[in-house]
């Protein structure tokens, strides 16, 4: 059997409008893109090949689904016209359909199925024609049945239109509640109604109330309350004292402190009310924001500001450096070893010496307090390879859970934003501070943060 999944741009225009960052067919439903539910269903129904038809672009869908080998089927793509009937679609894909029975799922609608039923036998015994319909969607079969319908054969199935944010919200919540038993959902853990992705950092005081679904690289900070009925995507930060209940949070979203998200869909800096359809773009980074590479990060003015400040520091610390460095080097307290770090473009690496100053003795203590161990790196700011302040440079090849492959923002710096905050020394907390500043800082705040980092390092080291 073969399956055709057919869509028209007009059916999912609302998704483009409300969630412009995601291709409508990849709209997340619970913790999986919408199209995957349909592919799963096609497979349960016994398809060996699936073709996705659309009158709009399918490039992103193709990049995500590729040739279907992930599911063990042949997946192909073709284009149709907005006014093509099912008959016309079959004509355009005559070779694909061949002599086999074809199931056509058309319309932007969600199939409520249950993986425990034997859809394969069902499909092969169904007469041709419409199987199930809903406003804007239908499942049709062509060809003749190959089996007689046994008396006992039943299969639970219904279609639900995804024609608005409201229906999308309902479908997501329904999938979250009935998900694991009915659908094929990714997620780890033995706990029912609780699906977690990789690398989820949960602070101690976080409260999680089932059912919840949480994606990869999610950070939940102190006293956050998640759920009941929270669907959280990947690369999400929920800041302190905030709660997310009966809500959907899309990938790459930052939810600020002390917020209460109840019955909402948050996508980047956009907050949506699925009931009224209202949608507001927050301009205020303290509320919601999209986590992505801050455009200022790579901007020339920022690089210039960083380079100038670096030059000032280089000049100011030249004398202590020129005195202390040879002294420490001779005494064997200054150890420098070559290493390779991930560059700003994370597919590149850069050589950068690792300096360790053995802080015994007054000279070494002063050197560390003045951050002289970072002195050489300042020159890299002038050449534009490093930021003055940014992320802690990551060693190339080091597998860290917060490695930039997972994180959309990474900017190696001489100082790290984490060092500018007292509370976030290492680990998950440091990452969150870095991510926050990488998303929100600008050249001017950077100068302030560099000074803070300096003072913090100074206080820390001079008290040892």
């Amino acid at each position: 059997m073969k399956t055709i999944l057919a869509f028209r741009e007009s059916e999912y225009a609302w998704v483009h409008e409300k969630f412009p960052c995601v291709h409508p067919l990849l709209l997340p439903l619970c913790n999986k893109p919408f199209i995957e539910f349909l592919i799963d269903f096609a497979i349960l129904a016994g398809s060996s090949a699936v073709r996705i038809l659309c009158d709009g672009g399918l490039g992103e869908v193709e990049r995500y689904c590729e040739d279907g080998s992930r599911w063990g089927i042949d997946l192909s793509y073709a284009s149709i016209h907005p006014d093509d009937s099912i008959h016309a679609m079959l004509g355009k894909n005559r070779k694909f359909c061949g002599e086999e029975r074809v199931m056509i799922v058309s319309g932007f609608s969600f199939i409520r199925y249950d993986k425990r039923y034997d859809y394969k036998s069902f499909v092969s015994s169904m007469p041709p024609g419409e199987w199930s319909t809903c406003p804007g969607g239908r499942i049709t079969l062509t060809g003749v049945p190959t089996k007689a319908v046994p008396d006992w054969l039943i299969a639970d199935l219904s279609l639900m239109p995804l024609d608005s944010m409201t229906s999308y919200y309902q479908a997501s919540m329904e999938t979250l509640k009935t998900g694991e038993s009915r659908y094929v959902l990714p997620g780890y853990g033995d706990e029912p109604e609780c699906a977690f992705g990789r690398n989820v950092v949960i602070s101690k005081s976080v409260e999680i109330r089932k059912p919840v679904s949480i994606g990869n690289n999610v950070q939940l900070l102190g006293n956050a309350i998640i759920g009941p009925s929270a669907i959280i995507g990947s690369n999400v930060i929920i800041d302190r004292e905030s709660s997310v209940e009966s809500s959907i949070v899309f990938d790459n979203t930052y939810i600020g402190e002390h917020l209460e998200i109840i019955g909402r869909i948050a996508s980047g800096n956009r907050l949506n009310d699925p009931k009224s359809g209202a949608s507001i773009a927050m301009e205020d980074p303290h509320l919601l924001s999209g986590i992505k590479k801050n455009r200022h990060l790579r901007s020339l003015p920022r690089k210039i500001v960083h380079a100038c400040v670096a030059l000032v520091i280089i000049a100011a610390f030249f004398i202590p450096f020129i005195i202390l460095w040879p002294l420490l080097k001779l005494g064997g307290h200054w150890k420098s070893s070559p290493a390779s770090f991930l560059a700003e473009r994370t597919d590149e690496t850069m050589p950068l010496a690792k300096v360790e100053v053995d802080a015994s003795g007054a000279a070494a203590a002063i050197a560390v307090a003045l951050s002289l161990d970072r002195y050489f790196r300042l020159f890299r700011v002038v050449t534009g390879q490093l930021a003055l302040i940014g992320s802690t440079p990551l060693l190339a090849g080091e597998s860290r859970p917060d490695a930039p492959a997972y994180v959309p923002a990474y900017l190696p710096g001489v100082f790290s934003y984490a060092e500018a905050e007292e509370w976030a020394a290492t680990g998950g907390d440091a990452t969150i501070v870095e991510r926050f500043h990488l998303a929100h800082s600008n050249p001017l705040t950077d100068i302030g943060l560099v000074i803070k980092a300096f003072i913090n390092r100074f206080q820390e080291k001079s008290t040892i």
Partner: protein
Amino acid sequence: MTITETSKIGIAILSLYGTLDALSAPELRNNRSIIDPEKTVVIDLQQVDFIDSSGIGAIVSASRQKRQPSGGIVLACMNDRVRKVFEITNAQKLFHIFDDTTAAVDFASSRQSASA
């Protein structure tokens, strides 16, 4: 590139072989069946191993030559490479695209008789 032209129930079928680029595009542009505004043409792209923007441009302009731009040129048997370039340029929106030449000819002939 070589163009093999056959005809079935009054529909011209142009089968293209090889590369459709800036060098070979004029050959398609100047083809008699392409220039004829009344003629419905099916272009079979199965054997096109490379197409670039000049090739897309030639097919789009062929369509503009026709009395009915949206139906005068019907495309058939796009391979993955060709389909990707159509997808990038969004030109697939302008055409009816079939995965089988016979089906494309059936469609073209129904179009032609409807407009005649």
